C-alpha cells in the first residue's frame, strides 16, 4: 500500500534531505536549586520549515530530557510558548530558524514573568490582571431565555473589536513593555487591550465600570505609548492602539 510512508511531524531521526545546522543555546535555571543561570549549547540540523520550538523539543527528546518548556498547539493559537529568542520575546512555535538570520539561537525565559524553571514562567499575574478588567459582556440580560434570538450586530460592528479579541494571552506584550520592565503592579498591555475589546463591543454596557478599574495609579496611565507591545504581538492585536483609544475615553477625546 502506498499509504505507509510515515510523516515525521514529531521529527524523524533520519533527515530526508541534507540540511543545515544551527547552534541552540538554552538558558537553564531552576530557582529552587541553582544560584545562577547557565547556558547549554546544542548543534541541531534544521530545514526551511523548522521552528525554534521544533529544535527545542529535539533537544528535549534526544539530548536532555530535563529541559523545562511550555508548549501545546504548535500553531500559534494557544499562547504557551512565548520566550526570549535572540533577545526579543517571540512565540517559539511561530518563529522559523530561517527567519532569524543567525547561526546561533539563544532562548531564554520571557522577562517580567517569574521563572519556574528554564524557559517556563509563571502567568499568575497576567491572568489576575485579565480577570480584574472584567473581561465579559456586562449587561443584565446576558443569560438567554428560551426562545430569544441573538443580539444583532453588523459585520462593521464586529470589526470594531475583533482584532483585540485575537489575543492568545501569550504575554509577549507584557514582556516587551518598558513599564512592565520595572513596574510589578502595572496592569499591562494584555489586560488593557482586553478592556478595550469589551468596551468596543456594541453589545457591552460596562464601559464606565471598566474605565473606573483601570483609572488608578498602576492602571492605564502607566502606558506611555511606547508601542513595543504591538511590535511583538504575534496575532496583530495591536494593544497600543486599543490602549490609546481606551484612554481617549478617559481624556474626553472620545465618548
Amino acid at each position: 500500500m502506498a499509504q505507509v510512508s510515515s510523516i515525521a511531524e514529531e521529527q524523524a531521526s533520519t533527515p530526508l534531505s541534507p540540511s543545515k545546522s544551527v547552534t541552540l543555546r538554552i538558558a537553564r535555571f531552576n530557582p529552587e536549586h541553582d544560584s545562577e543561570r547557565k547556558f547549554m549549547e546544542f548543534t541541531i540540523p534544521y530545514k526551511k520549515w523548522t521552528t525554534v520550538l521544533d529544535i527545542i523539543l529535539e533537544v528535549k527528546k534526544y539530548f536532555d530530557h530535563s529541559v523545562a518548556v511550555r508548549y501545546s498547539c504548535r500553531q500559534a493559537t494557544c499562547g504557551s510558548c512565548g520566550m526570549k529568542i535572540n533577545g526579543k520575546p517571540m512565540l517559539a512555535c511561530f518563529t522559523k530558524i530561517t527567519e532569524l538570520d543567525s547561526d546561533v539561537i539563544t532562548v531564554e525565559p520571557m522577562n517580567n514573568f517569574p521563572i519556574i524553571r528554564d524557559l517556563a514562567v509563571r502567568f499568575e499575574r497576567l491572568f489576575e490582571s485579565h480577570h480584574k478588567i472584567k473581561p465579559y459582556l456586562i449587561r443584565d440580560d446576558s443569560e438567554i431565555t428560551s426562545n430569544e434570538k441573538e443580539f444583532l450586530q453588523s459585520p462593521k460592528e464586529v470589526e470594531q473589536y475583533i482584532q483585540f479579541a485575537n489575543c492568545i494571552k501569550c504575554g509577549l506584550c507584557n514582556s516587551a513593555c518598558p513599564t512592565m520592565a520595572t513596574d510589578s503592579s502595572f496592569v499591562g498591555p494584555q489586560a488593557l487591550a482586553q478592556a478595550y475589546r469589551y468596551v468596543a463591543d456594541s453589545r457591552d454596557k460596562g464601559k464606565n465600570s471598566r474605565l473606573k478599574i483601570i483609572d488608578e495609579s498602576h492602571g492605564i496611565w502607566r502606558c506611555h505609548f511606547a508601542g513595543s507591545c504591538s511590535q511583538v504581538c504575534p496575532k496583530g492585536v495591536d494593544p497600543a492602539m486599543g490602549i490609546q483609544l481606551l484612554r481617549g475615553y478617559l481624556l474626553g477625546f472620545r465618548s
Partner: protein
Amino acid sequence: MTDSIEFDLIICGSGLAGLRAAIEAAKKNSKIKIGIVSKVQVMRSHSVSAEGGTAGVLFEDEGDSIESHIYDTVKGSDFLADQDVAKRLCDKISKEIRQLEHWGMPWSRRNDGRIDQRNFGGYSFPRASYASDKVGFFMMQTLYDTCQKFDNIEYLNEWFVTSIIHDGYKFMGITAIEISSGNFYQIKGKAMIIATGGAGRLYSFATYALSSTPDGLDMAYRAGMALKDMEFVQFHPTGILPSGILITEGARGEGGYLLNNKGERFMEKYAAGMMELAPRDIVSRAIMTEIDEGNGFKHETGVDCMKLDLRHLGDEKIKEKLGGIREISIKFSGIDPAKEVLDIRPVCHYMMGGIHTNIDGATELQGVWAAGEAACNGVHGSNRLGANSTSECIVWGKITGSLAVDYIEKNTNSNLWPHHLVTLEETRIYDGIFRGKGDANPYEIRQELTDTMNDKAYVYRDEKNLVEGLKKVRQLKEQTWKHVDDSAKEYNTNFTNVMELDSMIRTTEIILIGAINRKESRGAHARTDYTKRDDTNFLHHTLAYYDPKEPIMKTHPVTITNYQPVERKY
C-alpha cells in the same frame, strides 16, 4: 502524608467541555466549590485550535430544520450513532450558540446582523456558525472570560491528574501532580466531570495539540470504566504538509477544490452529489484511493499528497473567512493560498470513541460524568460530521455540569477516604515510573509508537497490518522506557511525558484490538479486506474494560429510533 485539597465538583480538563460545565455548575449553585484541574493552563487547551465551525440550526425561517440536522448526523455516522443522543444534540445546540453570542462570542455576522453560517461536509444546509476560521479559539475565549464572572471556580493550572479514586461504586476524588512544584496531591470531591479531550497524538501525523494524549481516557479505564468505539479514528482530508496542521473543512465549505495530478476534481467519482463537501471518511478514503492509483503528488518531504485549490476564492474572501489558515499556510508552508495550491493529506483529527457514557454523559461510576471528545455518548457513531464536535462539547458540558450539581446537592460523602488507593497510586507512579530504570529512550518509543499507528491503522486498514501493529506495540511496551532521567521536582515534563506514554501504549492496544475485531468497513474504519458495512454482525458499539493483561472486549447495542440503516450515498 499526601497533601490534600477538597472541592465539591472536580472538572478535569479545561477545554470547551470543561469550561462550559464549570459555568453551568457555578451558575446553578454559587455555594459549591468547583475546581478546574488541567495539565495545561486554561486557555492553552487543545480546543483553541478548532477552526471551522459549530453546527446548529439557526435558520428555521429560511428552510433549515432540526430534523434535517439529526438525519445528517445519523447518516454521517454510518448509522452507528445513537439516534436519541443525536436528537438531544440537535435540539439543544441552537440555543447554546445564541447563549454563547450573549456572552460575547464574536460570531461572524450576516449583513442583517444575524449570526452567519457556512457550508460544512455532510450537511444538507449551510449550518456551521463560524467566527472567521478560529471558532474554537473564540469559543474558548468566550467561555474562559465568562468563567471570570464566577467566584466559586478555582483553576488548578498545570496539574497533571493521574488517577480516579473511588470505593468500588462511588466517586471519591482524584490524585494529581502540581507540575510547577512537583508535589503529589489527593483531591477529594463529591463529583467529577472528565473533559480531557481527544487523544490524537497517538498518531505522529495529527492536527492535534501536542498535549492531546489519552491520559484522561486511561485514568477512567484503569478505574474500571469502559472505553467505547475506540477503533473509530477520524482522518481529516486536509492536513497541510509538512506540519499536519489542519486546513479547515470550511476551506471547502467556502468553495475550495480538491485536485489530483490530472487536474481533476476527483471527488466527482466518489460523491458526485456533494463533491468536496462529502463527509470526512468518504473524502479521506477518496484521497487515499487516488494516491494508491497513482494520481497523487509527492511533497518535497517524500510523502504522497493531494492538492487543495483555494485560488479562485480570491484574496479578499480568504482574508475575511479563512484568515487563520492563510496565516498557517504562509508561515508554515510558505504558500499563499490565494496564489498557490496547498499540499494536503489525510491526518488524524478526531476520536469518535471515548469513555462510555449514557445520553446524559453519566459514566458507569456513580458521581462521574464525561463530556466532550473524551466521552463517547454515541452521538457521532463511526464518523463525526465536521462542526458537530464543538457543538457536542457545549451541549454535554452544560448537561453534565447541571447534573453534577444536582448530584452534589443530594449526596454527602460519608465513606471513609481510601488512603490505601492513594498509596497504591503513589507507588505506581513514583516507584514504577519516576524512579524506574532502563535504557530505552521514552521519546523514541513514543515516536515509534505513533509512527506505527500512522503506518498500520491509517485511513485504510487490513488484518495483516493491524496485527503487525499490535505486535509492534506490545514489543514497545516490553522495552525499558519506564524511567525519568530528569530528577528535579519542579516543572518536570519529562515525568509527565513518560506518564503520557504509559497511557498511550494501553490505548493504542485498545484501538488496534477493536479494529482487528471489527471485520467490516463503517465510517472512519475502512478495511480493504472487508470492504462492506455489515449490519448483521457489527451494528453495535465496542466496549473495552481494563484488565492488567489485555483489554476485555464487549459490545453494546445501538439505539435506533426513527432511521433504519440504509446504504450511504452522497
